[in-house]
């Protein structure tokens, strides 16, 4: 039989990385084909090749049985392949209708047919029943609404292949339901849908087949109904849970509280957050995108304007007007942003400069001159301890792999005497090997008496790396669950707001 879209032994190299190693993938007409794998497994690379953003170094792509060279995203669209990525392609200042028709405006000789475009947009959006008016500007929409507009834009011209990259990550239950309905409708029309997801549970509901990728290779393709979550995870990681996650040492019972938050409210939607963090403890923070877990990290170092609440470090209250990265750093609290390249690292500076930038006063002599020898020795020591590759203090950080970049960022906290590590998605986009190294490092840090606030979207990390898991839902901290009691089902119920702990905050305090 001919497949709708077929990749045969596709290879893609990036400098120093083999991103795809002879990967084959087949998509049938009228099927939802889920693509799963860890970050860095090659899923994005593969769909980017389908979408025309990347060109393969080897292998062939066939569309409806004919070999094709997909030259550009534009070309992919002409071929009937549409992709909706996490990074939306909407122009905030334009209206919904203008966005949907962007680049393929309906015109009557030279002039825009605005009413016609509005009418078609309305019809297209009608499927969602989400009350989005075509004349609304995109910047005035909520994130889930924008996502639906993006999908409306992608499906306007009845594509043959629709690629959805983690489509449910930013949707609430209601919109997820709407999306499932739309996808089933498209499937019935014969559209082939590639569905990338980390939420294994939704596979059983929507997918026909599942392809698992790991480290740039195709591992297996299975019928969705015939597989289990455990099986998939084993295929994805190539190992059992115990091998990935180091054994969690209990927090010493007499460990003092180092960070205490009471009634924190912020402009952008944090509501009455209270939590405590003890020395030697890793507190996981989970929740859906938009639950406010990222905001919490930012709020703690003054990056998010607060409207109420109190933050105490080692029992000492930090005045709200003093709340800044600088002030928190002086109190031993360092924040590691999720967007490492955008906010965390000086990408065009050296490993050395990146590691010591927050601790230069340690290397200053009397008149303010730097002791470069001492600085270099310290950096070399951390490069060795963290096994950073290349082991060169002068290497530019932008040339390092994501995992090594994260190690450099962590070293910045280590060189400075940091007591509280607030880490936002520290393992995002990092290979398994480095992830393990980071888990081990975190455990070593807490053994030595530091504390970690570990904000992550990775369910397994919450379950296996953290002493307690705090779950955020719509800006509120709805539950704090000890490691022993945490299970995926239980966490998910809190994630989706189906459940909330009785007297949520008080039980957090009690922990």
């Amino acid at each position: 039989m001919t497949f709708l879209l077929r990749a045969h032994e596709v290879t893609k190299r990036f400098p120093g990385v083999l991103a795809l190693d002879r990967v084959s993938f087949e998509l049938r007409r009228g099927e939802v084909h889920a693509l799963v794998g860890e970050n860095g497994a090659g899923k994005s690379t593969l769909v980017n090749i389908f979408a025309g953003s990347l060109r393969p170094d080897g292998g062939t792509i066939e569309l409806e049985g004919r070999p094709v060279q997909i030259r550009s995203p534009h070309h992919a669209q002409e071929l009937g392949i549409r992709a909706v990525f996490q990074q939306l392609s909407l122009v905030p200042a334009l209206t919904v209708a203008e966005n949907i028709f962007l680049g393929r405006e309906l015109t009557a000789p030279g002039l825009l047919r605005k009413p016609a475009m509005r009418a078609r947009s309305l019809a297209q959006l009608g499927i969602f029943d989400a009350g989005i008016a075509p004349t609304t500007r995109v910047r005035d929409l909520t994130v889930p609404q924008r996502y639906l507009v993006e999908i409306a834009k992608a499906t306007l011209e009845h594509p043959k292949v629709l690629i959805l990259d983690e489509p449910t990550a930013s949707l609430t239950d209601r919109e997820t339901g709407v999306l499932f309905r739309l996808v089933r409708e498209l499937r019935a029309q014969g559209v082939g849908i590639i569905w990338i997801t980390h939420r294994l549970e939704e596979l059983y509901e929507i997918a026909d087949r599942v392809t698992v990728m790991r480290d740039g290779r195709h591992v297996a393709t299975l019928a969705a109904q015939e597989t289990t979550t455990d099986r998939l995870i084993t295929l994805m990681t190539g190992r059992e849970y115990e091998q990935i996650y180091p054994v969690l040492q209990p927090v010493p019972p007499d460990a003092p509280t180092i960070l205490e938050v009471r009634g924190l409210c912020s402009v952008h939607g944090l509501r009455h957050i209270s939590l405590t963090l003890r020395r030697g403890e890793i507190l996981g923070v989970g929740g859906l995108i938009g639950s406010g877990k990222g905001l919490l990290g930012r709020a703690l170092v003054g990056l998010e304007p607060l409207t109420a609440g109190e933050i105490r470090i080692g029992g000492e209250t930090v005045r709200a007007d003093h709340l800044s990265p600088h002030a928190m750093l002086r109190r031993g609290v360092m924040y590691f942003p999720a967007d490492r390249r955008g906010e965390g690292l000086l990408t065009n500076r050296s490993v050395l400069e990146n590691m010591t930038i927050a601790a230069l006063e340690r290397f200053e002599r009397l008149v303010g001159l730097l002791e470069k020898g001492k600085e270099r020795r310290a950096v070399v020591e951390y490069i060795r301890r963290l096994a950073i590759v290349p082991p060169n203090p002068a290497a530019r950080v932008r040339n390092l792999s994501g995992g090594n970049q994260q190690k450099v960022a962590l070293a910045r906290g280590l060189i400075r005497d940091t007591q509280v590590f607030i880490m936002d998605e520290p393992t995002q986009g990092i290979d398994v090997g480095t992830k393990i190294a980071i888990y081990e490092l975190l455990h070593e840090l807490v053994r030595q008496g530091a504390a970690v606030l570990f904000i992550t979207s990775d369910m397994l990390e919450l379950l296996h790396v953290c002493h307690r898991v705090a779950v955020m839902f719509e800006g509120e901290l709805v539950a704090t669950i000890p490691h022993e009691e945490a299970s995926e089902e239980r966490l998910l119920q809190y994630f989706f707001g189906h459940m909330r702990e009785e007297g949520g905050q008080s039980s957090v305090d009690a922990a």
Partner: protein
Amino acid sequence: MSTPRELTTRRFAAVGRLPFLRGMLDQLGLLPVLLIALLIFFSIASPNFFTRANLSTILTQALFLIIVSVAQTLVLLTGGFDLSMGSSIALVSIVVGLQLLDHPNTPTTGLALATLVAIAVATGIGALNGLFVSLFRVPPFIVTLAMMTAVSGLALHVSRGVPIFGLPNYFSSTLYTGKVLSIPVPWLVTILVLLAMYVVLHWTRFGRYWYAIGSNAEAARLSGIAVRLYLFLAYTIAGVLVGITGLLLTARVGSGEPTLGASFPLESIAAAVLGGVSIRGGEGNLFGAALGAVFLVMLRNGMDIMGISTYTQMIITGGLLILAVIIDNWVHRER
């Protein structure tokens, strides 16, 4: 995703055992090579080029652009730039001229006051730039463009558009033709400026912070750097250097000129970028910028000596500027 590995490491493997030389090449790129090529070319093209007198002329002409380029580099490193340096020099020139007219016969007082007002005026302008950029977050382009216009108007207003002439002789004979330890004073000042700024940039936290801010201001802030303060300081310290240039340049031309230094802002940016300073900030060093300044001045001098017509000179300069940066990007830097 597509991050090339340390290409430079491999490329300069041949000099791998000389880390200093390798570092220099890494930071300065091809510019020294181009400079030497230009030197050889002009020496062959004209007998009047490679003479003691002319080489000394080139260096002297380059000094002023060197200091301004170093000042520009400070600002460029933080991710900004300063268009007001030219009119700042003009205002300094006028104010210095007026001061000197008041002290025709008291060299010590005259020189001290001239130096003081020169640095005070330019530092004040730099500080204002810094204030608007850091505190009020106005884009550097707008701030310094506005400052350029305003200060230029001020210089014309104070001077009535007329040069301040008839300055006392001691001024030029001390600050331009004067010598200390048989080194001409402007050369000495330039060397001191380069040394001082080298130390500040590479041996103190100031430099580290400027690089950090230019590389990624948000990361710098999260690393506990007082970003606004250091932005302000970059513009202010650049102002000090501009003041020094204004003083020396006034001594060179021998009068207070309301339109002095008009070409400096763009030329200094060109020199710095030629020398490997990134217009996006966080990259480059002052020796590259200084070499870039020498390159521009030598190019003009050589073409003047060869008798190449002005129009042709402009075409060649424009073409070479683009070519030099392209070659440099291509051979050296990974962007």
